C-alpha cells in the first residue's frame, strides 16, 4: 500500500517536471526572441528590463543550462515576473486560485449530487419521465457551448428575472460581517456554478443511469432481493455504491476539462479567478503569467487524479488488493 502511494507520488513528480519542461520549450519554440516573449509586447521593453531578463534566464548560455536555471527556480516556487502586472507570477496566481477552486468545487458538487440522484431515479424506470429528462439534459449538456448557456442565463436573469447577480463575485456596495460576505459570494456563485455544473450534471446523470442499470442486473442484487432486502436498501446500499465507481473515475479524469470550462464561464460572468486572469494575460501577451497558469492548472489536475485514485480504492477494495 505505502509502496504504491510512494510510486504514484514519484510518478506525479515526474509529470510535474515534464510540464515545466514543456513550458520552457513553448517559450523557446515561439517565434521571436525569448526575452521579448517573456517581457511581453507591452511589458517594459526597456533595454534595462531586457538585460535583466537575459541575465535571469541565462539566455546567452547554452539551452540545457537555460533549462536547468528555469527548472531550478521553478522548483523553488519562482515562476518568473509578470511584466504586465508587475508582480511575481506565483503571487498573482495564488490570489486568483481561491475563486476558481470555489467555482469548480460548486459546479462539481452540484453536478455529482443532482446528477447521481437523477440517474438513480431514471434507472428505476428506463422508460419513465426521469429517464427522458436525463436523455434531454445530456443532449443539451453535451451540445450547447458552455459560454453560450452562460450568456443565455445572463439574458434571462439580468433583465427578465433579476434574482441573481450576473457579474463579479462580491458587491462592493454591500457592507457587513463575514456571514454577509459569504452569503454575498454564494449569491454571486449561483449562475456561474449552475452554468458550469449543467455540463457535468448531464454527463453524470447519464453515466449513473447506465451504470445503475448494469449493476441492477448483477447476481448479487438478485441475491439481495431474494433475501428480502427492501427495494430502498437494495438501491441505496447494494447498487449505488458499486454504480458510483465509474462516475468517480470519470469525474476525476475530467478535472482538466472542468478547469477549461471554468475559463469560459469565468469570462462570461467576470468571475475573478484564474480563467479571467488567463484570458486577460493572453490579451496582454503576458506569457510568464499564462504559462504559470498552465502549470498550476496541470498541478491541480495531477492532484485531482491522485485523489480520484484514492477514492476509487475506498469505494472498491478489490482495486486496492489487485494490481
Amino acid at each position, binding site marked *: 500500500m505505502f509502496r504504491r502511494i510512494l510510486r504514484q507520488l514519484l510518478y506525479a513528480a515526474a*509529470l510535474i517536471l515534464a510540464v515545466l519542461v514543456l513550458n520552457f520549450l513553448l517559450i523557446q519554440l515561439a517565434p521571436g526572441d525569448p526575452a521579448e516573449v517573456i517581457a511581453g509586447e507591452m511589458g517594459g521593453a526597456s533595454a534595462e528590463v531586457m538585460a535583466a531578463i537575459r541575465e535571469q534566464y541565462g539566455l546567452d548560455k547554452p539551452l540545457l543550462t537555460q533549462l536547468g536555471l528555469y527548472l531550478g527556480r521553478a522548483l523553488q516556487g519562482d515562476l518568473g515576473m509578470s511584466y504586465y502586472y508587475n508582480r511575481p507570477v506565483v503571487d498573482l496566481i495564488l490570489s486568483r486560485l481561491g475563486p476558481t477552486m470555489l467555482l469548480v468545487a460548486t459546479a462539481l458538487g452540484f453536478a455529482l449530487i443532482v446528477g447521481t440522484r437523477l440517474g438513480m431515479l431514471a434507472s428505476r424506470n428506463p422508460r419513465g419521465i426521469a429517464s427522458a429528462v436525463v436523455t434531454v439534459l445530456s443532449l443539451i449538456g453535451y451540445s450547447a457551448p458552455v459560454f453560450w448557456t452562460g450568456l443565455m442565463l445572463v439574458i434571462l436573469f439580468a433583465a427578465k428575472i433579476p434574482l441573481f447577480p450576473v457579474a463579479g463575485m462580491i458587491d462592493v456596495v454591500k457592507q457587513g460581517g463575514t456571514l454577509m460576505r459569504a452569503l454575498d459570494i454564494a449569491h454571486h456563485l449561483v449562475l456561474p456554478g449552475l452554468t458550469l455544473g449543467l455540463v457535468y450534471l448531464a454527463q453524470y446523470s447519464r453515466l449513473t443511469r447506465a451504470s445503475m442499470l448494469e449493476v441492477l442486473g448483477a447476481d448479487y442484487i438478485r441475491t439481495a432481493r431474494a433475501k428480502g432486502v427492501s427495494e430502498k436498501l437494495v438501491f441505496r446500499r447494494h447498487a449505488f455504491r458499486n454504480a458510483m465507481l465509474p462516475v468517480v473515475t470519470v469525474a476525476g479524469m475530467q478535472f482538466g476539462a472542468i478547469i477549461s470550462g471554468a475559463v469560459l464561464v469565468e469570462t462570461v460572468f467576470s468571475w475573478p479567478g484564474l480563467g479571467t486572469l*488567463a484570458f486577460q494575460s493572453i490579451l496582454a501577451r503576458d506569457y510568464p503569467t499564462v504559462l504559470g497558469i498552465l502549470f498550476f492548472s496541470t498541478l491541480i489536475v495531477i492532484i485531482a487524479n491522485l485523489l480520484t485514485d484514492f477514492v476509487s480504492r475506498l469505494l472498491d477494495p478489490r482495486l486496492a488488493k489487485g494490481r
Partner: protein
Amino acid sequence: MTAPARTSVPAARGPMAEAWDIFRRSPSAMLGLALLLLVMGITFAGPHLYHVDPFEIVWAPLTPPGEEATIPLGTDNLGRDILAGLIAGGSATLAVGFAAALITMLIGVLIGAYAGFYGGWVDDLLMRVTEFFQVLPPLLFAMVVVTLFQPTLVNVALAIGIVSWPQTARLTRSEFRRIRTLEYVNAMRAIGAGDGNIIWRVILPNALPPLIVSATLTIGMAILFEAGLSFLGLSDPNVMSWGLMIGSGREYLLDAWWVVTLPGAMIFLTVLGVSLVGDGLNDAFNPKMRER
C-alpha cells in the same frame, strides 16, 4: 454509414448494411442526420443564394430581426448582416472541427495501435506520453499554443488535435489489446504476415466501429472547442465564425439578444446533430447495448 457499395452479391448483407438498417430506424439518429444536412446545406448552398459579405456594414447597428425586410435576421453591433454571418461562419467552424477531429484520430489511432499491439515497454512508454497529454487542461493549452504561434485556422485545428488525442489512443489501445489475441490474428501470423500488415490490414478494420463512433463525438467536441477559442477572440480575426460572432456581440447582449443567441443556436444544432448521429452509430454497431 451508407449502403454497402462493395458487396457484389446482393443476398449477402454485410455488417455495414445491418448497421445502416438499425440506424435508419432510429428517429433520433435520423433527426441528427437531418440537422447535419441542414447545417451543411446552409453552409455550402447559402453563399450562392444570399449574396451579402458578412464583414460589410449594411444597415444601422443592432437592428432587430424582422424590422427590415432586406435583413431578415437583423444586424450586429457594427451593422453587419447576421444572416450573412451565420452562413459564412459555418465553413470555418466545420472545417476546423473536421480537421481537428482528423488530426485527433490520426495521432490517437497511431499511438493506440502500437501501444495495444506490442504491449510491454512500447505500451508503457506510449501510455506515459498519453497520460502526460491527458493532464494538460485542454482549453488552456490550446489558448497558449494559439497565442504563442499565430491564430490561423491550421494552428487552431492543430492545437485542438494535440489536446484531444489521448482518449482516442486509449480506446484504440484497448480494442487492439482485445483483438490481437483472437484466432484470426494468430492465423495471419501463422501464414507469415508482417506486423504492419496485421496492425493496419487485419486489426484496424475490425476495431473500426467504436473508432467511428468516437470520431463522430470528437468532431462535436472539436466544434465546441473552436467555438470557445473564437469566442475568446483567439481564432483568425479575418475569418467569420459563429464563436467570433458571439464573442464580439456579447457586450450588447442585453440590448440585442439575437446577436449572441442565433450563432450559439447554430453551434448547438450542429453539435446536437453530430452527437445524435454518434449515438445512432453506437446503437447500430452495438445492438446489444441499445437498452442503455
